[in-house]
């Protein structure tokens, strides 16, 4: 436990990044806008968005909808075609996010159900110092609230620290930090996880094999996440990492504290992203000003923008590092619809050939992606995992929470379409999830049990 606690500090960093959903980047830089405009014209429109009174289809907000210089003619003709594309893309993007979130949750739930290690209480993290084993309800409540306060303040401090570092351009430090934490996550946690799974299924594995397996897994993971790698592999790694982190949280957070923390974090997320002085908002704005992507490391992106020959002078500096720094830990970041940042990259990542780009404004994109912060994944999975672990209604509750979270995600994306700026991804989903968890556990379960015992159907 002790070692665990020591190690866990580095894990906290990313934990602290808030996650938010970011829709369109609306950078004030003209060239940037041009690029964005161009990209938009290519696929979906931006302006449409304004008009898009989309009731259901979450629109794919592609980047800046600013009426920049490059916009002129496009509007008229392309608009209509793009509308439909937009909608289709919109729905597509929602699905692109559904799938990884679902996968992550499935992994977490499967592990919780089968491996008993994660439901045993073996102690607590140092961030939740108050124990919940107290006899009285009031005391327990108090302790959990105190735990939450401690945790949230740690998160706030870390986030502010990170934002400051970013502001003062201490990139190397941030890089190093992220690499260290992802290293730890990839190796240590995987080792523990694998150990527990093998124990559960009573499979013997000798140390050399274990070493080779973990080494390969970790090394490939590091490369994939922090450097280049096939998109799907990177996504798979990010999902694995989120699941691991969520499992750790589920194991080490005491019961009531976990729920209160989930609630508090969604409130914090809301504030941090929407308030003008919020750290996350500052992070986003700073990144926009500098035309940099916000820590691609800490976010999950569902598609890559493949650009060939970007003729933007300022992108030269960015270099390849952007694509994939990964914050294995939770960077709860911003959800952005257009990965405009990637668009800045003059990387020809993909094997898919794109038309040779000649003008400054043409951005070839294979697909516009949506981005969601890893922290979002983690907390969603924590919610569902806890539901699976502790609910007595078992699968019903888990299923209910799952649907609730997906709907929350849908709604959030819808709002993204409407508001077109960074939005917190947590609050709506977590609120729905919490409501459904508590109500299903207490209300629906007795009802369904009674029905099932009489074999009645409704």
């Amino acid at each position: 436990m002790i070692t665990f606690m020591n190690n866990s500090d580095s894990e906290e960093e990313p934990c602290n990044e808030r996650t938010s959903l970011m829709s369109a980047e609306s950078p004030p830089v003209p060239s940037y806008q041009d690029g964005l405009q161009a990209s938009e014209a290519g696929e979906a429109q931006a302006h449409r968005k304004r008009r898009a009174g989309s009731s259901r289809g979450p629109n794919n907000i592609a980047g800046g909808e600013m009426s920049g210089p490059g916009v002129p003619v496009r509007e008229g003709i392309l608009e209509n075609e793009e509308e439909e594309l937009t909608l289709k893309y919109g729905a597509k993007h929602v699905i692109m996010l559904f799938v990884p979130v679902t996968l992550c949750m499935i992994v977490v739930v499967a592990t919780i159900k089968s491996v008993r290690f994660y439901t045993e209480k073996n102690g607590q993290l140092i961030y939740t110092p108050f124990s919940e084993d107290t006899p009285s309800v009031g005391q327990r409540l108090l302790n959990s609230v105190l735990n939450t306060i401690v945790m949230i303040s740690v998160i706030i401090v870390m986030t502010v620290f990170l934002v400051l570092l970013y502001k003062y351009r201490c990139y190397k430090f941030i890089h190093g930090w992220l690499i260290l934490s992802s290293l730890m996550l990839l190796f240590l946690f995987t080792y523990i996880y694998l150990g527990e799974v093998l124990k559960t299924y009573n499979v013997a594995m000798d140390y050399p094999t274990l070493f080779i397996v973990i080494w390969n897994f970790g090394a490939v993971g590091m490369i994939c996440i922090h450097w280049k790698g096939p998109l799907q592999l990177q996504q798979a790694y990010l999902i694995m990492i989120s699941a691991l982190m969520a499992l750790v949280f589920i194991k080490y957070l005491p019961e009531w504290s976990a729920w209160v923390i989930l609630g508090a974090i969604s409130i914090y997320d809301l504030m941090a992203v929407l308030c003008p002085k919020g750290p996350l908002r500052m992070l986003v704005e700073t990144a926009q000003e500098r035309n940099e992507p916000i820590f691609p490391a800490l976010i999950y992106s569902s598609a890559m923008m493949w650009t060939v020959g970007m003729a933007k002078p300022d992108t030269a500096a960015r270099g390849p590092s952007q694509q994939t720094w990964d914050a294995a830990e939770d960077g709860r970041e911003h959800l952005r619809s257009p990965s405009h940042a990637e668009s800045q990259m003059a990387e020809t990542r993909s094997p898919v050939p794109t038309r040779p780009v000649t003008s400054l404004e043409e951005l070839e994109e294979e697909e516009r992606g949506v981005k969601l912060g890893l922290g979002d994944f983690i907390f969603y999975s924590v919610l569902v995992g806890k539901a699976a672990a502790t609910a007595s209604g078992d699968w019903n509750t888990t299923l209910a929470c799952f649907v609730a979270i997906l709907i929350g995600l849908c709604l959030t994306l819808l709002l993204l379409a409407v508001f077109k700026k960074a939005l917190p991804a947590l609050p709506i989903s977590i609120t729905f999830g919490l409501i459904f968890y508590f109500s299903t556990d207490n209300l629906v379960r007795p009802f369904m049990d009674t029905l099932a015992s009489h074999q009645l159907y409704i």
Partner: protein
Amino acid sequence: PAFSLFIFTIARDPLRIIILIAGAFFWLVSLLLSSLIWFIAVKASDPQDERLQKGLLIFGVMFSVLLQEAFRFLYYKLLRKAIEGLVALSEDGCSPISIQQMAYVAGVGFGLMSGAFSMINLLADALGPGTVGIHGDSQLYFLTSAFMTMVLIFLHTFWGILFFHGCEHRRWWEIAAVVIMHLTVSGLSFRNPLYVGSLVPSYLLMAAAAAWAYLLSGGSAQNLRRFLLCKC
């Protein structure tokens, strides 16, 4: 079978998936509300009285059915608005998904959710040790549950189509028919240990609903024959 329906018809189009999940959500909310009512009723009544409990249960079930249909209606309204939005956005004035497809997907959503809720705990327990019906209950418990669930899922799908069609064309009797059918099926399940009583009529009703829905969606005996005989 329901799952394969899902894979073949819905998984392709993302919009349908969203509608599906939303449908499931609506069913869930209706379930929540109805169990809330039931819970309150139970707490407010005497737990010792067997007959009262049973009566309350029946009341709860009926109420839940009514609520489900009400939510289906609400969902219909929402989808109507959505279609208008989609039409406004699309280029050639027609929406990428028709109201009938939506009806189908909504029905499947409801059905899947209700089926999942009915079956999943059963399945989980089935993995564990134990013998069915050891206390004198029917030994066919699992089997009948499975069939009943399947029939219910299909029924929900058909009801979805019928219901939406009724709403579209303002034929109130269609809607009433759906509600009555739902009530009937639930009522039939009350006679459950007597499986003949519940399963067979349910299947018959399902066949009727299927035929009706098929006809409504524009099929005809001719189409059917052509499809079955050969695909030439």
